[in-house]
């Protein structure tokens, strides 16, 4: 890879330890993937925030970097292992909270906006069409590439941090237009009626378009919340973090449907539900917000929970960004949800909080949420928001 004089100086330690280590990472990745040069990035989204995944060694690594590392571009953060304010109410231990706060302190010291959300595009980290960024968090990467039309590879925590300290990333993969050409045509004949249908569709397409870029036809319109859910699902179940929906997402007008064609019908979607769902009746956990709820979704939850009560043995979480919760506070949604016995889980979610062993069965609107909850040894039920609220109120899936 060709390096400028300034980049050579960073690699040899001229800007300190964090920048040197970062350049080593970027140059190695550039060489592995055949990049010719580094390119500037507009923003960074950093994953690897939960102490549950980092452990003491990860924390130590971040502290090393924080000694002299300062980010050069707008950098936001993925969810942590707990609500940074309300962790006690969510059953997080004192010991875990102390470590998680040290992780956040290290990121703060680096100059990172400690937003702790998987929806950075909803809270102020919004790239423009065609802009190069370096994001981690697979659902956000897919949203940036597909719904916004920005350009990013699927970064890991350390490679995203490296891009933030240098302000650049190696130019390969999805940064190059020739690698953004769709390679499978997916025609959808199934009707999509509720939010969870988008998760189920993502499951079907992820499985059928494994490691490919789908060009999707048959969908006339889609709301942002639906696309957000689809992004999380399609990449979790196997596709590349980029898709096109004809006449819905940007760039679709520049491409023709590829010759290789698959069809997704209503039977495929029903099959997806069967695979994602387990046999479960008693529901002791309902969590909405994977990816994090938008203010519009919180409004809908508040409407459905007005004058109702969550079942005594069931825990109900709204996983969202602190920013969205502040808007919910202003509208009175928070008061309605909390009066019903629901809890806000800001800054965190069901995928990264230490939940193993705490709950037996979860109900959620999210296919990705089900995937990670199974790893936490829960039985899973995916359905519409109405079905999930009904389960929270009765404690049963019906």
């Amino acid at each position, binding site marked *: 890879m060709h390096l400028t004089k300034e980049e050579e100086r960073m690699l040899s330690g001229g800007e300190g330890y964090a920048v040197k280590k970062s350049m080593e990472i970027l140059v*190695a990745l550039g060489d*592995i993937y055949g990049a010719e040069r580094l390119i500037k990035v507009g923003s960074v989204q950093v994953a690897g925030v939960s102490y549950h995944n980092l452990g003491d060694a990860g924390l130590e690594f971040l502290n090393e970097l924080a000694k002299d590392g300062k980010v050069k571009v707008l950098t936001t953060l993925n969810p942590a292992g707990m609500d940074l304010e309300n962790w006690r109410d969510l059953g997080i231990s004192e010991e875990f909270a102390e470590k998680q706060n040290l992780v956040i302190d290290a990121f703060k010291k680096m100059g990172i906006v400690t937003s702790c959300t998987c929806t950075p595009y909803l809270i102020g980290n919004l790239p423009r069409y065609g802009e190069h960024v370096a994001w981690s968090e697979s659902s956000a990467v897919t949203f940036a590439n597909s719904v916004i039309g920005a350009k990013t590879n699927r970064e890991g925590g350390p490679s995203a941090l490296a891009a933030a300290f240098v302000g650049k990333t190696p130019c390969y993969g999805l940064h190059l237009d020739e690698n953004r050409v769709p390679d499978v045509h997916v025609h959808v004949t199934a009707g999509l009626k509720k939010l969870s249908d988008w998760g189920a569709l993502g499951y079907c397409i992820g499985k059928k378009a494994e490691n490919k870029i789908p060009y999707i036809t048959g969908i006339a319109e889609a709301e942002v919340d639906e696309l957000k859910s689809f992004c999380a699902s399609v990449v979790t179940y196997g596709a590349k973090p980029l898709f096109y929906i004809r006449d819905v997402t940007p760039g679709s007008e520049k491409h023709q449907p590829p010759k290789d064609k698959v069809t997704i019908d209503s039977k495929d979607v029903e099959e997806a539900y069967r695979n994602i769902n387990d046999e479960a009746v008693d529901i002791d956990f309902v969590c909405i917000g994977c990816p994090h709820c938008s203010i519009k979704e919180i409004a809908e939850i508040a409407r459905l929970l007005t004058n109702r009560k969550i079942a005594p043995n069931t825990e109900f979480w709204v996983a969202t960004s602190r920013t969205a919760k502040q808007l919910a506070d202003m509208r009175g949604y928070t008061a309605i949800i909390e009066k019903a016995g629901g809890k806000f889980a800001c800054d965190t979610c069901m995928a990264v909080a230490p939940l193993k062993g705490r709950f037996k069965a979860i109900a959620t609107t999210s296919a990705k949420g089900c995937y990670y909850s199974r790893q936490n040894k829960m039985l899973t039920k995916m359905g519409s928001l109405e079905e999930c609220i009904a389960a929270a109120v009765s404690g049963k899936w019906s």
Partner: protein
Amino acid sequence: MELKGRIIYKGKGSGEALVTSQPISFYGGVDPNTGEVIEKGHELQGKSVKGKVLVFPTGKGSTVGSYTLYRLKKNGVAPEGIINRECETVVAVGAIISEIPCVDKIDISCIKTGEHVRIENEMVIV
């Protein structure tokens, strides 16, 4: 026998080879505290990577795996070196932040478990 590859993280490391023909997922697949391979059904399940020169085709799985390599190193149970056929992001970043000598573009079928292997930058000496 001498094999020449490509440096991912430069340095010297030697030890007994632990070889598998299957990709390794460090996150969830290797215990960061003991160095034991815990992925169900993996060829190396139950074996420890501690002190070995770990030889495998490529990495797979969650990007959190880079931090798992770092945790192995800090816990004193990391491999002495890593040899891949084709290195990918998770292992490359993990090797760099953990400062474990790592080389790829090596015909790993030439190396057998138990052989003494030395990595010297881009060279692998069996």
